[in-house]
């Protein structure tokens, strides 16, 4: 029995992907925790950008929304939204886009729009937000999601954001400027694109997790890379930092707000 959970390992593994000093566009939820863990551990000079226009933000607690006041209070500057998407993202000034999604397919395409037909959805999801253009224009993207055969699927119900499209170089033939999803971090390990087919394959496992478990959690016949790395468990400092961050966040979000008078 390890003293860490798979969810914690997923966040730690994702955080380790971020290089110190990189310019990172942060999605809400799982990516936000991973990016701030990176900032509080090995990457103090990472520049975190949230789509609300907060640049270089250093929140003490994780925001519930992408526009919490905490993000503005601790930002180097706050810019209008058309500039975020135009001057930064579209112009190619973001190194890493860190995204979550409801579904990822075998070529790293993402769905956050609908489950079922678009015109008569079984489940209407929030939609694209910033994700479509982050996926297109960040120099590379990392994706985080919990793995089940319903989240790692052979075929998406709707393609909200492009990964490698149909694979085999399809993305490079478009005007998408970024190189696409280079890592999909799940709660069993990491998937990375095959260099030629661009199909996601198993490249790393958490300690104590097996290839069979990874295959059972994946909705297509999962191929295994030539070498599958075992990801080192969280260090003491990573775990303590992550748990303290979550504890501060829970406390802050529970704190009653005085109604304006």
């Amino acid at each position, binding site marked *: 029995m390890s003293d860490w959970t798979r969810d914690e390992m997923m966040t730690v593994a994702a955080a380790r992907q971020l290089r110190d000093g990189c310019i990172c566009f942060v999605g809400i939820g799982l990516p936000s925790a991973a990016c701030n863990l990176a900032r509080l551990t090995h990457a103090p000079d990472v520049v975190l950008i949230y789509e609300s226009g907060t640049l270089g933000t250093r929140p003490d607690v994780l925001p519930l929304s992408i526009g919490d006041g905490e993000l503005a209070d601790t930002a180097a500057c706050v810019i209008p*939204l058309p500039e975020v998407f*135009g001057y930064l993202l579209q112009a190619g000034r973001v190194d890493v886009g860190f995204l979550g999604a409801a579904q990822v397919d075998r070529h790293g395409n993402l769905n956050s729009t609908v489950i079922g037909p678009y*015109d008569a959805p079984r489940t209407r999801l929030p939609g694209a937000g910033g994700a479509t253009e982050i996926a297109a224009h960040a120099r590379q993207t990392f994706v985080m999601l919990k793995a089940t055969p319903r989240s790692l699927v052979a075929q998406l119900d709707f393609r909200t954001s492009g990964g490698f499209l149909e694979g085999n170089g399809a993305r490079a033939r478009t005007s998408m400027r970024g190189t696409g999803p280079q890592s999909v971090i799940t709660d069993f390990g990491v998937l990375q694109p095959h260099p030629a087919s661009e199909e996601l394959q198993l490249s790393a496992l958490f300690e104590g997790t097996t290839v069979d478990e990874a295959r059972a959690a994946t909705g297509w016949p999962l191929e295994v890379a030539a070498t599958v790395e075992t990801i080192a468990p969280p260090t003491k400092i990573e775990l303590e930092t992550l748990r303290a961050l979550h504890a501060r966040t829970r406390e802050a979000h529970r704190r009653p707000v005085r109604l304006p008078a």
Partner: protein
Amino acid sequence: MRSKVTTLSEAIAAHVLDGACVALEGFTHLIPFAAGHEIIRQGRRDLHLVRMTPDLIYDQMIGMGCASRLTFSWGGNPGVGSLHRLRDAVEHQWPAPLAIDEHTHAGVAAAYSAGAAGLPFATLRGYLGTDLPSVNPRIRSVDCPFTGERLAAVPALNPDVTILHAQRADRRGNVAMHGIVGAQREAAFAARALIVTVEEIVEELPPAMNGIVLPHWIVSAVAQCRGGAYPSYVHDHYARDNSFYQRWDAIARERDGFLAWMNRHVLASRDHATFLASLREVA
């Protein structure tokens, strides 16, 4: 000079008509809840609502039957989950069918910018690798006349009325805002009429060389409305009530519970101060 300062109920009655295209903007911050509630109280119908992030305010307006069309780019309860009333309208046409015009944030930001600049459409290197153009005929393409690059094109957004909330205005109707400002300035300049609610009205705003100020001649009406963005927030006045956003998930999940809450807190309150007082009673 005639003062732009009025009451919120007069501003809504004068400018927001049935069937209008209305944008209540504010990106997480400065969301004009009080104005949305007043539109609900005045029983507006058949509105075309525009907002990048519908948020709780459009969940409420859609659930109360104000809207027949929605232009948006991200329709969730941030960090919490679904907007249940928006989902019910899309999935089950309750309380009325809702046509949706779905975009990405970059697309709506560009469409507001084009609208503000008086251009017919916006172009961007966007909507790449997504199925959105196949379900939204307003997302088209244009070839750059200089490079030949194919770019996305979306029609300019020019709401009949844009409604914002801000920190301060002066008596002439100049409006100053700071903090996260989203695409509010673009939505303001794109609109045919602009209503702004503010935390306070001062005699004169100090000069703000690079600050965000909406000049009085684009502002149609200003109304003081303390707490007018709650449960969203106003930087330097009050914080976002994240616990309310979390509670909204249960309040809005079922139709009956939603209607009971809206009746008790919004319809039974004559204005926003009374609405806030009714929440204090249950706290």
